[in-house]
């Protein structure tokens, strides 16, 4: 499976990208969208909302199930992906470019709590059994 090495990951299957300007972009992983199947609805937190690491902050709904998405790090939501409301299938097409929201981190150290690609790969392997 495609698990890019320049991204960080959570156990709950979010991907995290540290941008050059110090903001963080996040979305759900290819594995997560594969488990859920065809997306029909996405609910993203509003810009301006302050999130705590690990907080439930978004919902992705597929034909099979609705799943919570968790904030990978704490901070303020600065912008959301406007495309997903009318085209949630973009997550199925390319989970890594279909970001959900960008966050201005309040504690950049929290990035160290996240998994790198090889650790995430191991999680996927252990879940497979």
């Amino acid at each position, binding site marked *: 499976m495609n698990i890019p090495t320049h991204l960080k990951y959570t156990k709950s299957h979010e991907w995290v990208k540290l941008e050059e300007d110090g903001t963080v972009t996040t979305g759900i992983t290819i594995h997560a969208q594969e*488990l859920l199947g065809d997306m029909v609805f996405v609910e993203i937190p509003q810009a301006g909302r302050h999130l705590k690491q690990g907080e439930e902050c978004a919902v992705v709904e597929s034909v*099979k*199930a609705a799943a919570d998405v968790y904030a990978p790090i704490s901070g303020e939501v600065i912008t959301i992906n406007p495309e997903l409301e009318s085209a*949630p299938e973009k997550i199925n097409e390319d989970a890594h470019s279909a970001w959900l929201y960008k966050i201005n981190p309040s504690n950049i150290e929290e990035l160290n709590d996240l998994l790198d690609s090889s650790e995430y790969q191991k999680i996927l392997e252990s879940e497979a059994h």
Partner: protein
Amino acid sequence: MLIFEHSRPGRCNYSQSPTAETRTSNIPQNLMRKKPPMLPEVSEMDAVRHYTRLSQKNFSIDTEFYPLGSCTMKYNPRACNSLAMLPQFLSRHPLAPEDTGQGYLACMYELQEILKDVTGMKSVSLTPMAGAQGELIGVAMIRAYHESRGDRARTEIIIPDAAHGTNPATAVMCGYKVVEISTDKEGDVDMDALKAAVGPQTAGLMLTNPSTLGVFEKNIVEMSRLVHEAGGLLYYDGANLNAILGKVKPGDMGFDVIHMNLHKTFSTPHGGGGPGSAPVGVADRLLPFIPVPVVTIDKGIYRWVTEKEIPQSIGRFSAHMGNSGVLLRAYIYSRLLGAEGMHRIAEFATLNANYLMKELSKAGFEIAYPNRRASHEFIVTLKDLKEKTGITAMDVAKRLIDKGFHAPTTYFPLLVPECLLIEPAETESKETLDSFVLSMKEILEEAYTDPEMLKTAPHTTSLQRLDDVKAARELDLTWKQ
């Protein structure tokens, strides 16, 4: 084709038209219709043919094996229908005085007693109109209990990740935060996760036992002790009561409140949005909060018990007392079975499920929890099959329709990938189970020899594979001219 599309102006079923002109005089002019309602105009024959055709397209328990897991699709005995439709029941007005409805009230009182007895609870209210409402009432009583004690620090309800989706929805509707706990490799609730989750903030635990994984929670007594010691209450989701009916009582496991789906365990008609019914039973702590009305007996006379006698009742949830026609069917079903028959339900439901599980395992299907004995249902996972052939649980489910079987529950519980949750129920014969296994074997072979046949199934229905993604994304629920 919709009945509206058969409509032609002026066409009418005269034999059923009103014979006398009746007008209501006390409706204000501004509320009167200016134009007649847009009802379909069809002849009697058109209407009969339309609905007969629809019924022929339907898959139902009356025509096919229906092993829909966690739904308990069992045969609905005809005696229950014919007795519940006696004219004395049908024409009874819900507001009729108690002394003209003693027979009906006696049935309801006895049903309350039977349900109390079979669940080990102290009191039963028949008023909830459906499973989801039963849950709402159950958790609302838990809330009322804590509030009556001035204990407002309890803000959380603990729910295992294997639970039905209605459980967290109910907790949230009642203003609680949901704390999800995980399941271990054998399908039991993870006891360490439970220990970590309980505390002074715990209002209660919602549990289905046997769980949706088709296994009986081995540690239920310990779980019950942990939650009670922390000051929380235990909620029993009765979705899977069929597996233990007459064998184990939720009251004995320590549950404080239970809802029972009569349309599952007590064989009242089920599905198609038909009338549900979910009486709630309570143990001592929740007695003061039970919804009204309930029926009692004084000196041989049956009567209603209302808010006057249960002042802390959380109130009324249906206009009168639940779906009376459904309650009558459940009452008759219980009386047909008797106590001995109820034991046989649990025994045969469990026997059928375990037989089917073993036979499917022999036929090459992977069982999700092979080390556990099934309760009344079990899970097959097609994860390996998908990896090898690309065939999914949905493809197998659709192909089963071609073979004359309703599909099992698919993709639930979410914990098990590519799963089929199979519940045969006690009313099926060995011959039916064997022919289901044979069809599953054929489908497994087809997955390797003719996968396209599965990918494009069903082939024998009036509509082929539907685009459920499009249906979910572009909801279209209303007929428009």
